[in-house]
C-alpha cells in the first residue's frame, strides 16, 4: 500500500482509501487505547472515535509520520475518555467475581506454537503489566505505552504526545523506575528471566 497516496485520496474524501489506512493501523491503535484505558469496551469506543476524528481532521495532516499523527489522536481520545470517566464513573458491564476479578478478559494475540500453560502465563504477565500501567499517572503511562510497548522511538513518541524530546526522555525514565517498583509486587507471575534479583534500585 502506498501510504502517501492513500492519505491524499482520503484527504479528498475517498472513504475507501481511508479505510485501507484504518486496516493498516487499527491493531496498534486499539492496543494503545487498551493500554491507556485498561478496559476492552472503553478501548473500542476510543479507537472508533479516534478513527472518525482522524477522518474529519485529515486535512490538518501535513506530512511526517502518519502513525505518530494517528496515535496522537488515539491518546487524546483516551485522555478525554479518562477525564469523562473520572467525572462520571461507571461500573463495568462485565460480571465481576467474588475477588473482583472480571470474568470477561481481553483476547491476546497468541503464538500457535505456544502451549496452554505458556499462553496462560503470558496473559497473567499482561494483566500484571496493565495493573502497573493503571497505577501510573496518565502522562507517564502514555510514554511507556508508546516507547516500551509499541516500540516507537523518542522522536515519534514526542510527536504523538506533542511534547519536547527532553520531556519524553525524563518521563520515560521515571515511568520505568515506577513500573519496576510495581512489577516487583507481581514477581511470582514474572518469567524466571525477568525476576529482579538483588537490592532494589528505587
Amino acid at each position, binding site marked *: 500500500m502506498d501510504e502517501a497516496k492513500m492519505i491524499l485520496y482520503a484527504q479528498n474524501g475517498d472513504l475507501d482509501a481511508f479505510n485501507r489506512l484504518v486496516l493498516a493501523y487499527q491493531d496498534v491503535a486499539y492496543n494503545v487505547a*487498551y493500554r491507556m484505558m485498561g478496559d476492552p469496551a472503553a478501548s473500542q469506543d476510543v479507537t472508533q472515535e479516534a478513527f472518525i476524528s482522524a477522518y474529519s481532521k485529515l486535512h490538518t495532516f501535513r506530512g511526517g509520520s502518519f502513525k505518530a499523527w494517528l496515535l496522537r489522536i488515539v491518546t487524546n481520545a483516551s485522555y478525554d475518555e479518562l477525564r469523562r470517566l473520572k467525572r462520571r464513573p461507571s461500573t463495568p458491564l462485565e460480571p465481576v467475581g467474588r475477588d473482583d476479578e472480571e470474568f470477561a478478559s481481553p483476547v491476546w494475540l497468541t503464538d500457535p506454537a505456544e502451549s496452554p500453560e505458556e499462553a496462560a502465563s503470558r496473559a497473567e*504477565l499482561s494483566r500484571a503489566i496493565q495493573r502497573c500501567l493503571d497505577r501510573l499517572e496518565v502522562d507517564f503511562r502514555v510514554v511507556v505505552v508508546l516507547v516500551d510497548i509499541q516500540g516507537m522511538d523518542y522522536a515519534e513518541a514526542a510527536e504523538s504526545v506533542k511534547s519536547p524530546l527532553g520531556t519524553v526522555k525524563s518521563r520515560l525514565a521515571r515511568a520505568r523506575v515506577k513500573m*519496576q517498583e510495581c512489577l516487583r509486587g507481581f514477581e511470582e507471575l514474572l518469567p524466571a528471566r525477568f525476576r529482579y534479583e538483588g537490592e532494589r534500585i528505587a
Partner: protein
Amino acid sequence: MMADRISPKDFELLSAYLDGQVSAGERQRLDSRLAREADLRRALAQLRQTRELLRTAPHLQRPRSFALTPEMVKSRARLIRAFSAVRMVSIVAGILFAFLFAGDLFFNSFRVGNIAFAPQAGEMAAEADMAEESIPAGDDQELDLEMQGDETPEVGGDEDTAAGAAEAGEAGDAVEDAAQPPTGGAESEMTPTGMFLLVPEPTSLATASPALTPTPLVQAYKLTDTGTASTRAQATGTQPSPPPQPYLDNDDKGLVESGAGAERESGLAVLLLKIAEIALAFVAVAGGLAAWLMRRGSR
C-alpha cells in the same frame, strides 16, 4: 538504599543510554562511570530488565474492525457543521456586542463630559456680561417672547430693538442668577437642570444679530424660561406665575415639535441599542454554551 545513591538525573541518563538516546560525550562519561560504580551497573541491569519485560507484553487481538461506514462519517460531518455554525454565530454576536458596548460607553462618557463642563459659573457670567454689552440696554419691560420669534431685532433700531435688549438683559440676569452658587434656603433649591438648561442661552444672546436664525432664539427661550421663572419666584417669595406660553408662529412650533420629535427618536434609538446589546450578549453566551455542550456531547 541504592535509590539514595542514584539520582533521578542518573536514572534519566541510564534510561536514555539503554535506548541509544545519549550523545557521544555522555556515553563516554557514563561508560567510564559504569566501569567504576557497581550500583550504577546494577541499576542499568534492572532498568534493562524492566524494559524487556514491557516489550514482551502481549498484544491484544482487536475484537472487531474499526473501518468507517458512510453513516458514521455523515453524522459526524453534520455534527461538525452544526458545531461550526453555532460557534461562528456566537463569535460574531460576541464581537458585535463588544463593538456596540464600547460605542455606547464612549458616547455616554462624551455626553457626561459635556454635562460636567456645562455649568461653569464663571464662564456663564462672563458670557452673560458680553451679551449685555453687545446689546444696548433698554427699559425694564416684560419679557416679550414675540421678539425671540422670527422677528429678529435690528441693532440700534426702533422699540423692538429696545425690547429685545431688555429681554436680553433679563435673560442675562437669569443667567447671572443661575450662575451664582446656591447660598441655601429657597434659592439653593434651584435645580441643576435649570442650570444645565441655561447653558446655550448666553451664546445665543451674545451672538444675537440680524443674521441670527430663529432656531437658537427659540432654544434660548426654552432654555432660560425654567431658570428665570423659578429664580424670580424664589427671590420675591411669590408664587411663580405660570410660565408664559411662547408665542410661536407655525415655523417655530414646527421647530419645537421637530426638536421634541428628535428627542423622542433619540430616546427610541437608545432603547433599541440597549435591546440589541442585550440580545447580542444573550446570543453570544447561549451560542457559546450550545457549542460547548455539542462538543462535550460528541465525545
